[in-house]
């Protein structure tokens, strides 16, 4: 293989710089939210900020390794990487360590590793590899099923480990497959599921069914071609079944705390004292996090100046709720910048993905953007009280080695693939 002499400069430095800014700024906020007492030793490895500094240091080695490996390696060994990753998830059932109710960690020495953070990159490689295969046609139902299986295996394994939040992230692959030609019906279906779920929970299955039937039949009668009448009837039946199913799922499958979160989000509970009670008990984190963000005002209180952060008012602030620290200490200006930088990063990756010549690279890039997006949307949406509580980390920001490394690997494999696009033909 021919190598360019200025190969290193063909990396997309915009992406790398945004990545470095996010990681660096994230670390500052970890210091604020995990620092206790009056002295501050950045290299105190017993403290989260010290550990995170170590993780960041190790990230550099990881990046060098990822970029040093041949780009072709990732495509060629995608299936092997996927299988190893799946085995690591299965292994959790035997060797896993239970933390906060989820069996998602391996304990190695004093460290813990969360394989699900790495499984995202592995799945992205596998999906890209399978769909980009000349034999595969995503428009075909059979291949759709096979692709879904690749995605659902890790999603299911993670769900079994009681980590529902990380499972949802696998929904990101919808964007990837849709881009590659997944039939329109799936989008319609996905949107319908979301709407029917919300309507059914909020207004009950009867109103939802009537509404669904109305929409379906209006469309049918407006349609000049008039397909057979059975079609709208079947669609309506499916909608009705779905709305009843959602009700059933909500009442019988979901756990109490999940129900409460949804109930609060959709304002299903009417009794104000009960709501107040739920808010206090279940949404305590959210209440405190919103309050911390609010108290930041426009300019914020300044680094290490946030009284709610210093007082550790927001539980889990250095992990899932890290954005509330940004809110309190850096204010509207700082928080808006963080959001803008995330968007720039995702759009940049998306843009690069579209530039890829190989379908594999493009799909992988799409997967990177989509996965980051889901994390971004769910995490910040949750911290600001826009969506129900779902515990997943904010990429590059939240404290945790596995998370940081998982996202670094995910992103840098794409940077490597991208740097190689001139060599591909």
């Amino acid at each position, binding site marked *: 293989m021919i190598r360019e002499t200025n190969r290193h400069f063909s990396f997309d430095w915009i992406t790398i710089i945004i990545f470095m800014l996010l990681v660096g700024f994230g670390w500052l906020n970890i210091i604020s939210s995990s620092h206790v007492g009056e002295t501050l030793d950045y290299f105190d490895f017993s403290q989260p900020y010290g550990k995170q500094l170590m993780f960041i240091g190790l990230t550099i080695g990881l990046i060098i390794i990822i970029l040093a490996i041949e780009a072709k390696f990732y495509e060629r060994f995608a299936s092997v990487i996927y299988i190893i990753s799946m085995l690591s998830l299965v292994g959790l059932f035997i060797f896993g360590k239970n933390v906060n109710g989820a069996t998602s960690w391996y304990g190695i020495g004093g460290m813990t590793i969360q394989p699900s953070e790495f499984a995202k990159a592995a799945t992205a490689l596998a999906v890209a590899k399978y769909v980009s295969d000349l034999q595969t046609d995503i428009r075909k139902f059979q291949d759709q099923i096979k692709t879904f299986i690749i995605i659902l295996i890790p999603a299911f394994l993670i769900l079994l480990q009681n980590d529902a939040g990380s499972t949802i992230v696998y929904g990101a692959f919808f964007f990837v497959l849709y881009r590659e030609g997944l039939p329109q019906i799936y*989008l319609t279906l996905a949107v319908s599921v979301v709407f029917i779920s919300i309507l059914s929970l909020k207004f009950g299955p009867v109103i939802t069914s009537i509404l669904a039937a109305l929409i379906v039949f209006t469309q049918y009668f407006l349609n000049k071609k008039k397909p057979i009448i059975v079609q709208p009837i079947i669609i309506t039946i499916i909608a009705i079944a779905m709305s009843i199913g959602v009700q059933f799922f909500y009442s019988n499958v979901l756990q109490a705390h999940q129900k409460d979160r949804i109930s609060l989000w959709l304002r299903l509970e009417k009794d104000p004292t009960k709501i107040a009670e739920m808010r206090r008990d279940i949404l305590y984190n959210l209440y*405190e996090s*919103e309050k911390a963000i609010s108290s930041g005002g*426009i300019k914020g209180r300044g680094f290490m100046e946030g009284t709610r952060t210093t*007082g550790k*008012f927001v539980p889990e602030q250095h992990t899932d709720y890290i954005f509330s620290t940004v809110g309190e200490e850096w204010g509207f200006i700082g*928080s*808006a910048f963080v*959001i803008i930088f995330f968007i720039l990063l995702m759009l940049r990756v998306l843009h690069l993905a579209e530039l890829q010549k190989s379908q594999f690279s493009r799909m992988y890039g799409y997967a990177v953007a989509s996965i980051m997006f889901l994390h971004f949307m769910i995490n910040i949406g949750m911290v600001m009280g826009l969506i129900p509580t779902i515990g997943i980390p904010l990429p590059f920001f939240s404290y945790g080695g596995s998370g940081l490394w998982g996202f670094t690997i995910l992103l840098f494999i794409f940077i490597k693939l991208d740097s190689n696009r001139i060599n591909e033909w």
Partner: protein
Amino acid sequence: MRQFLLFFTIITVGIIFISRLFYLQVYSSPANNLYDDNAIRKVYDYPKRGFVYDRNGTLLVSNQSSYDVMVIPREVKALDTLEFCNLLKIDKEKFKKTYNKAYHYSPRLPSVFVSHLSKEDYAVLQEKMRKYEGFYIQKRSLRHYEASIGANVLGDIGEVNNAIINKNPYYKMGDLIGKQGVELSYEDELRGKKGIKFIQKNRFNKNIGPYKEGKFDTLPEPGKDIKITIDAQLQAYGEQLMLHKHGGIIAIEPSTGEILAMISAPTYDPNSLVGRKRSQNFTKLYNDSISKPTYDRSLLAQYPPGSPFKVLNALIGLQEGVVTTEDKFTCNHGYSYGNRKMGCHGHVSPLAMNVGIYESCNAYFANVYRRIIEKYDTPYEGMNVWNKHVTSFGLGDYLGYDLKIGSPGRIPSGDFYDKWYGKNRWRTTFTLSNAIGQGEIEATPIQLANMVAAIANRGYFYTPHIIKTIEGQEIDAHYTTPRHTTIDKENFEPVVQGMYDVYNKGTAVSLQVKGLEICGKTGTAENFTKIDGVKTQLTDHSIFVAFAPKDNPKIAIAVFVENGYWGSRFAGRIATLMIEKYINGTISRTDLEKWILSHSLEHEYEKPYSGEPFKINRGTTLELVEPTVINHDHLLPAKS
């Protein structure tokens, strides 16, 4: 189009997030202020409240410690209620009630559980306190009044109410503030400035250390000690003389305007409004609608001044040039005008100013008054000139002294009668009672004392005041700038001579003190009350005003004794005793002192409330009581 789905979704979510951020941080962000931040605990450090000394340096008000049992309901664990109640000397019912009240107020914040423990109870409780989680003892500082005098002067402190908290952010719930008297007037100086510590809390409401290493913390500034103009000995003596009587006394040092004594009778022990019994005692005092001990008669009560007012008419007559000291008027056992007559008692006639004053002749002053008013074309004009002269003595309006309560008194003007009778529908004779200090005129004891001070100074006075020094600091120039009356200096001498003769050979001849030249004027003022809607006359008020000595006066005094009948009977005796006490330091007329101490007017005050017909003035008898002798020797200034 397919490649834009994710693109647009990302942009949309971005816009939603930034809008939400805007809503949270810009639109609905709370004002960031350390005081409102509930992540920061504010701990106040209260300074020592300033002491109050009398003019001679005798300590009048100091501080004492008191202990409150506090409760934080959320932290209370199961406890032996019975034992705890026994320690606190409360019953179980009260325990429950207080606990529920505290819980209702706030489960997280401390509330007072039992206030003002005695030192003994505190000592016992302190050892066992750690057994009762959620309860703790808080030390508070209370006022301590060294002597049981001057309740109306010194005032008291109490917890701030919401109106004050809203108006002045310095005060927080539970802070103490001066409520009355000197405590109220000099609140800012006495209280000092409380210090504050900002402490970072965590979400379990635990302190985790000083906020910013205490960068914003402040130290308390101690309150300033103040010296007031009151002479504690004189105040105590006056209060003692006023036992069993109702009325007000003000004594002023004419050369400075300093208030030497300010007595309102009946009074109460200021210590009764301190501590645990405060609210109970306050209610009792407040609801005593017959003797009204919380009503400061020396500043608030408006009485018709009666004869002492005559000297003012003499001064105005001289100043207006309508009368000379030699002009004589006839008194025919009174003064007839139209078909009416203003009565008078028997004395020489015709008579000039000097006799007019010392015999307190009504006819003489009716003539002078008419000449003053009728000098001008219309009685309206004359009335206004007269009003201008009278008000220049500080009558008819708030005096401007440094205590927060007062009454304006009433000095009628032309407009006043225009309103009363209609424009130009009245004549001088309609207002003739003004000649002898009755009718529409009303004055408070402090106004009258001030009027006497102005006469003693021959034409000017200083705004009366209670503050002498604030830790060596100069007092406001407002109190050290003389206010001149409209009467020329030379016009005072004949009037002063007249007042001296009152004492020397007139209506107060029985009150002489060997070696003291007192200038005074007796007064007997008719007064009325309403009993079941019927206007009923009561026994006259006994009034006496005086200053002494005649030259270089040291004290000017006004004494009102409600329903004491004629001027020298009660008021004159009390006034001269106080003058003697203040100037000589000892009392030579012990019989007279004993007479005052052993005569009560309580029965007189009960008459209107008895529901039975009663006699007044001549028909009354005096009631004897066992003289109460209170030893106030400890108020003597410490010999240095």
